[in-house]
Structure formats: C-alpha cells, structure tokens
C-alpha cells in the first residue's frame, strides 16, 4: 500500500517530496505522484501544510 494524495486539498508545493526518505514522491506540474518505493512511513503526511496526504489503511 502507498500513501494517498487528496488532489482536492493538495496545493502542489512539493514539501512532501523533499522529506520522502526513499524518494517515492514526485511533483509533476500540479499533482503528486507516488511510486512503488513508498514504504508507507507517513513522514510526508506530517509535513503537508494542508493535510492532503494520508497513509492508506
């Protein structure tokens, strides 16, 4: 399972990308993509200023 991004909340700033330890996130124009390297650590959910990221259950 990977972290999920609520596109309706996301402000596409890239802060989450910078803290992702395995580099699983990428900011592409106006959306965040999550790849297979995501280990669900949840660090990105903490940094997001608007709470757009969630660890999938």
């Amino acid at each position: 399972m990977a972290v999920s991004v609520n596109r309706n909340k996301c402000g596409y700033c890239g802060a989450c990308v910078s803290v992702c330890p395995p580099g699983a996130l990428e900011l592409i124009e106006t959306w965040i993509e999550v790849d297979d390297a995501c280990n669900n650590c949840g660090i990105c959910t903490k940094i997001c200023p608007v709470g757009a990221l969630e660890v999938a259950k």
Partner: protein
Amino acid sequence: MKDRYDMIVVGAGPGGSITAKTAAKAGLDVLLIEKRQQIGDPVRCAEGVNKELLSTYIKPDPAWISADVIGSRIFSPDGTMIEMGEKLSGAEVGYMLERKVFDRALAREAANAGVEIMVKTRATGLLMNEGYVCGIKAQHMGNNYEIKSKIVVGADGIESKVGRWAGIDTSLKPIDVCTCVQYLMTNIDFDPEFCEFHLGTEIAPSGYIWVFPKGNGSANVGIGITGDKSTNGSVKKLLDKFVERRFPEGIIIEFIVGGVPVSRNIKRAVVNGLMLVGDAAHQSDPLTGGGIINSMWAGEMAGRVGVKAINANDVSAEFLQKYEKEWRSELGRDLSLSYIVKERFRKLTDEDLNTLGHSLESVDLKNLSLPGLLWALFKANKKLLWDLRHIFKDIKEIKDIEKAEVGI
C-alpha cells in the same frame, strides 16, 4: 530543442535563470527547462527581498515591484512591538516582489543572453557516462527525449530530483523543512510601509507569521513552522486562527503553500558533470527562510564555474569544487550561523520572547547595525549572553563538521 548543449539547467526559478544567463553570456550553448507551463507560477514565496542586494543582479523595474517597505515590526507573544529600519531587517525586507512577473523577467534576460528555454518540460532522469552526468532524460507534451550536455545544473527547488539521481542525498528531515501557507489578502487594516513578523509558540511554534505589504491595500499573510511541529494540516489551521483574529474582515484572493529548506549545509552540491543551485542545494536561510538572493548569488557562481570547467574541458567533481568551495566559504558560513541561531530561537519560550521584546522596546533601532542590536540585547539580557555561549561552541562544531565533509 537540439539534442546536445554545453549546459542544461533544470528549473527556471531565479537561481536557474541566473545560472543559465551567466553561462550563455560567456558564450556557452545553454538549455533551460521548466516543468511547469508557466515560469513563476504558482508562487511559493513570501516575496520579500533586500533592495540593495537585488539591484546587483537586475535593474529594479516597477513591473515586478509590488511594494517598497521601510522596515519591519516584530511582535512578541504579548504584543510588544519592536520596530527596525530596513538596514537591520535583513535580506527579506525592502522590495516586495511580484514573483510571477519577476521570475519571467529573469527568464527573459536569460533568453536575451542566448539561452534556449523550454516550458512544460520535465527532467525524468540523468544520462550517465563513465561516472559522469552527461545530460538529461526529459519529457515534453508526453514525448520522451534524451538531451546531452557537458554539464547539468539542478536548480529544481525543494523537491529536487536531479541531486538524488546523481547520488546526492537531498532529502530533508521534517525538522529541517519550514512548512508554509500564505494568503494574499485584501480588505485588511495594516501599515503598508512595514513588514510584520509575529512570534509565539502558540501562534507559530518554531516559526513565525508574516504580513508583507503587496500594494493596493493587499498583503501576503503567511505562516511557516518547522515540520517537527506540524501535524496533518495544522499549518493552515494556525494561519486561519491568526487571520480570524487580526483580519476578521479580510478577503483571501490567493492561497499558496510551500516548503523551505532550513537545514544545515548540504553535504555536497557537485558530482562529476553536475552542480546544484538554490533550494535544491538547501541554500535558503535557515533562520528567515529567505532564498531569492542566495539562489541568484549561487547561480551566478555556478554559471561562472561551469564556463571555466567547459573551457578547460574538465567537468569533474574535482574541478567543480571551485563552486563548492566558494559558495561554502561565503554563503555557507552565513547559513551555518543562521542555522545555529535558528536552533537557539526554537528553544525560546513565550516568556523569553516577551523578555527580549521588552528589553528592546526603548532602544532606537532605526539606524542600528546588527552588532549594535546584539549589544543592546546583551546589555539588557545577561541570561541571553550566557545562553549564547553555546552558539560559539556550535559554530566551532559546525566548522569542524564542514571541514570533514568537504575536505577544505
């Protein structure tokens, strides 16, 4: 777009544009790519910049100056106000920019110097040859391209991938990122000649709230706190709370978010055939979060070193140490100092902040230099002087660490 250049710069923010312009002016064949459709937009910045420093890179133009401020007002948690003149206010006070226009002006200057620019073009990887970065993989309008170059410059911001692809660990710990939300507000009551900074562990733990004038009765009202103090979406909630109290009638006409590196110096910013510039190299100021001037300064240097390297036909990490050493010896030192001051600042309680505020209340700070301010603080707060002894110890530690890391 050709399939080969002397230099490819990834990211058309101020750092990238200045790098590209500097290199092109010296005769290099340069490609500057920007992943967004629009250079400069969406903005991720509070837009304040020191006038004097800025003027060394570009002639001030009313087209991208939203407001001109004469100083800053810092509010401690109990509301005590300290007023400082522009001189003392640092790199973020002076002109309030319109980044959307400013970034494009810089890109235009690069274009005028001969730089080829491609927007909506994203780097997706690096081309490597015998341990050297020798170009990029890029995507434009759904098509993939391989573009060769002698040097690649990663000016791709806080979300930098270029560094990671090249084996430089650019990831940040949450504690080393300032996570920010900003509203452009109108219909608000404030002094358009001053930048406001609001401190307090309740309103902005390990950070501050700012009100930066933007002209026509509007202002950037924003908050930045370090990531360790942030929980799922709390940053926006803190700003909303402040706005409700300070500008109950205010109307939000723009809503932006962003992250700023507020870390120690990055371990390395060059490898064979590659240099990092600006936020990608964590060159923003850890104390204030300001990064425009730093990026431009580093970009110009990277551009110059890139030219020398290509002319010498040597783009090895060893040759590019010229950039590494130079930015560390000047900018890097300032950043290290800002980092330790920030770490001290983070430990101050509201009571400490109030005490500092009270001790400066009667001091005329309009024409004070920074040493003058420190002296005034020391005189009024013996305890602070005692606390600051750690800073000098920390400075020595940081110097030792950096010597070990860079080997200079």
